């Protein structure tokens, strides 16, 4: 299939979007039907296909990831972490104030996220020459 397609950066990106959309639809349908095995198979098959296409693209010298994309990912991850943590903790306190058990769960998840963040922060700080 890849030989038929005149593969370039744009084709690879379109293929990845198409596969991701198909996997999303398949996951939605399989969860709706309560078949979690299909969900797992679909996720693994989707990831494997994307990896296969990316590897093919790399061998053809197509650049899919570079330092700008890496920086974009870092910034997006950082913002996502901050927003999700604040939302989790805020909702956690609100639900706790309303005596809802879910409040505790959200606060625990918030704490876990902060702990994981601290572990990775220390790891990268040390790796990049910090104390």
């Amino acid at each position, binding site marked *: 299939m890849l030989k038929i397609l005149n593969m370039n*950066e744009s084709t690879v990106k379109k293929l990845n979007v198409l596969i991701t959309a198909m996997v999303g639809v398949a996951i939605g349908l399989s969860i709706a039907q309560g078949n979690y095995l299909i969900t797992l198979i679909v996720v693994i098959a989707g990831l494997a296909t994307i990896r296969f296409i990316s590897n093919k693209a790399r061998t053809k*010298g197509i*650049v*899919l990831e*570079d*330092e*700008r*994309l890496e*920086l974009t990912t870092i910034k997006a991850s950082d913002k996502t972490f901050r927003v999700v943590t604040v939302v989790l903790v805020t909702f956690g306190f609100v639900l706790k104030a309303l005596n809802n058990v879910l409040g505790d769960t959200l606060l625990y998840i918030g704490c876990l996220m902060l702990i994981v963040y601290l572990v990775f922060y220390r790891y990268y700080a040390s790796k990049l020459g910090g104390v």
Partner: protein
Amino acid sequence: MKNRLKVYRAMFNLTQEELAKKLGVSRQTIIAIEKGKYDPSLKLAFKITRLFGVKIEDIFIYDGKE
């Protein structure tokens, strides 16, 4: 940071695609650098200047912002 990448690319008669391939980055990265939206890493900046055979300050001009 300002840069003269577009000027040097034109001088060497290279397309954005060709330059991107030579530097091992995507065409979007070249576009972003030329538009001044993205400041390249020191490594990429050196790769660019070596490719054109000039000094780093010939292409990249630090204007003191950010």
